[in-house]
């Protein structure tokens, strides 16, 4: 009697998963936050509404640890089916065969692969295969706090740009004036985490003739022009006190930072900002106005047990209609979307004219950070060297020489 009750119970328990197995559940991995994440969750729901047998769970891993956590998930057999991947992680994921070839999808005329610039796709191609579809082609721009500039009585970066005077001297003096007159920091160039030192720093280096690697991928962060660029950032930090020191947790969202260099998608985190802000191009240096181009794409992971459903969801995300919606936060690689009027007016927080000036006009001179295949190790040396560089009384030339000795010795 008892045994039969148990048996029936067991059957019921076993039958539940069998019944729900009719429905496919995909796991989508992303590092999105704020409104960008909300949009992705909404897209997942819409996809479920139009293909009821496929449910999509959106999983978030913060950007700093994204690649390593996803790699661990994949290795342990509990990886996501489909998700985002940033440009710096693409070579290692390709090398290990972790990405599914999507050429069956991208070869479809309806997908219109020609809508993507060749330069935007090169990273994702290997042999005849296409292993990812970029959704974000994003030059770094300068966010500025309009309220602080107004309070300090300085014309905004965009106004100074319009007059043609927006160079690094103007950047430095604006930051110092904001600092002196409001008490808030004038500018943050690097992100809070020194591991992400290249964000912001690269624009300053490249625009002033400096570099991290030369054309043979040999370390060049100790070249005379690089040293001058670091000297400028160092002097703003320790001389003017207008740039926060390493360890300082002040963020732009908090309203106590005049200027901040980041990708356009950062605007998704400014929804609740209690101040007015705008975007402008980076300042001009001795060798031009060069900004870093970041890329992120959709991929299907090779170990997915539902590769076809995952690819179909990727097709939905990368379609012109959906890309026009994600474009609100992520500058779209599809030319048809980028040049459309609806795109430039899609981000209610940034006026079309500002977006055009800051972003579309900068795309031509934006540069992708090309790194060597040992970059994970090299980046650790760069980051730890930069921590030694931003110390009171540091000898910048010596520290940068040490970094290059380590990086070239790898």
């Amino acid at each position, binding site marked *: 009697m008892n045994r039969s009750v148990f048996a029936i119970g067991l059957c019921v328990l076993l039958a539940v998963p069998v019944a729900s197995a009719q429905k496919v559940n995909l796991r989508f991995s992303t590092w999105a936050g704020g409104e960008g994440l909300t949009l992705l969750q909404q897209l997942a729901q819409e996809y479920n509404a139009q293909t009821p047998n496929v449910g999509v769970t959106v999983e978030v891993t913060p950007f700093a640890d994204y690649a390593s956590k996803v790699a661990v998930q994949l290795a342990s057999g509990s990886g996501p089916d489909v998700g985002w991947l940033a440009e710096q992680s693409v070579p290692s994921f390709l090398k290990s065969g972790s990405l599914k070839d999507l050429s069956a999808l991208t070869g479809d005329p309806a997908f219109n692969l020609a809508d993507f610039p060749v330069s935007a796709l090169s990273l994702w191609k290997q042999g005849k295969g296409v292993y990812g579809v970029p959704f974000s082609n994003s030059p770094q721009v300068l966010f500025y706090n309009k309220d602080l500039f107004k309070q300090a009585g300085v014309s905004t970066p965009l106004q100074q740009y319009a007059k043609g005077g927006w160079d690094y001297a103007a950047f430095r003096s604006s930051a110092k004036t904001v600092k002196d007159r409001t008490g808030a920091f004038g500018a943050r160039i690097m992100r809070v985490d020194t591991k992400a030192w290249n964000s912001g720093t690269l624009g300053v280096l490249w625009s002033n003739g400096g570099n991290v690697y030369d054309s043979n991928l040999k370390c060049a962060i100790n070249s005379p022009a690089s040293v001058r660029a670091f000297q400028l950032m160092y002097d703003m930090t320790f001389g003017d006190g207008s740039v*926060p020191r*390493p*360890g300082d947790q002040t963020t732009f969202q908090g309203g106590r930072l005049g200027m901040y260099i980041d990708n356009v998608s950062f605007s998704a985190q400014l929804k609740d900002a209690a101040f007015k802000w705008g975007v402008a191009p980076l300042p001009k240096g001795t060798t031009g106005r060069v900004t870093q181009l970041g890329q992120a794409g959709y991929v299907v992971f090779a170990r997915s047990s539902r590769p076809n459903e995952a690819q179909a969801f990727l097709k939905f995300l990368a379609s012109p209609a959906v890309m026009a919606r994600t474009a609100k936060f992520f500058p779209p690689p599809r030319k048809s979307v980028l040049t459309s009027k609806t795109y430039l007016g899609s981000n209610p927080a940034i006026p079309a004219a500002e977006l055009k000036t800051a972003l579309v006009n900068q795309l031509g001179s934006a540069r992708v950070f090309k790194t060597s295949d040992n970059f994970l190790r090299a980046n650790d040396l760069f980051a*730890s060297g930069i921590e030694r560089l931003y110390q009171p009384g540091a000898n910048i030339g010596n520290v940068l020489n040490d970094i290059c000795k380590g990086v070239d010795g790898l």
Partner: protein
Amino acid sequence: MTVGARPARRGLTRSGREGRLGWLMVLPYVLGMLLLVTGPLIAVLGISLTQWSLLDSPRWVGARNYLRLANDPAFVRSAGVTAVFTLGILAVNISAALALASLMNTRLRGIGIFRTLVFSPVVMPVVAWALVWKFLLQPQGPVNAGLQNLGMADSNVLFNPSTALWTVIVIEVIKAVGLNAVIFLSALQGVPPELHEAARLDGATPWQAFRRITLPLISPTFFLVFIITLIGALKVFTPIFVLTGGGPADSTTTLILYMFKQGFQFFEFGYASAVAAVLFVLVLALTLAQWSLRKRLVFYED
């Protein structure tokens, strides 16, 4: 607790019945130990003989990872950081715990509140604790502002390679000292007051009484606290990871952080496993050494 010789029950022999029952009762622990400790331990030793990026399949390289360790200056440096960190924690934590316990053992007014305050960091979640300190230790945060007022210009203790390690040690001790203090307190309260009374009548100074009576009587506790603090210090990861991530300039990269970096940042799981194996042998050797010293240094009443 010892199991005395009880009269055998009728039927099955004791070894037959209680033995089986005993095995059944320790089974969950034995299984857990085998599956979650011994298994991974053997796996780590195996992985340490391979080159494995996690995304591809492991490749056998023999002892190459260990040879590489011997010639890796960053490994040697992180071993040095570990030594300073561990000795620093031991010295600061144990002396502070003993001092706090002695204070808590007195009958001063408000000592209950003081005990709660000393113990409360122990129950704080470690990440929250570290994050709060990270904000307190910002370049222009309250701690550095205080130090600057004391004449230390440009003080930025957590982000200066020469002071970061000691800053982390102090934060870690404040977090953990309450537990050791409570353990010491219970030992101090177990010291019979008549011994102190007799010593006082014989004219012993308070220091002599502490040195000759209290310390020998609490030496088993001292030994316990020493071992758990030592092993704990060698295994500290989370607060360092949150506070400094091993920086600035690797000045707080202990062996555990070095292992994490090799594995989860550089994807060299073979090399990271070799670091783990060395750390395991180190902890094992230290524990065995302490165990053999125990008989000479620890005083047992019975």
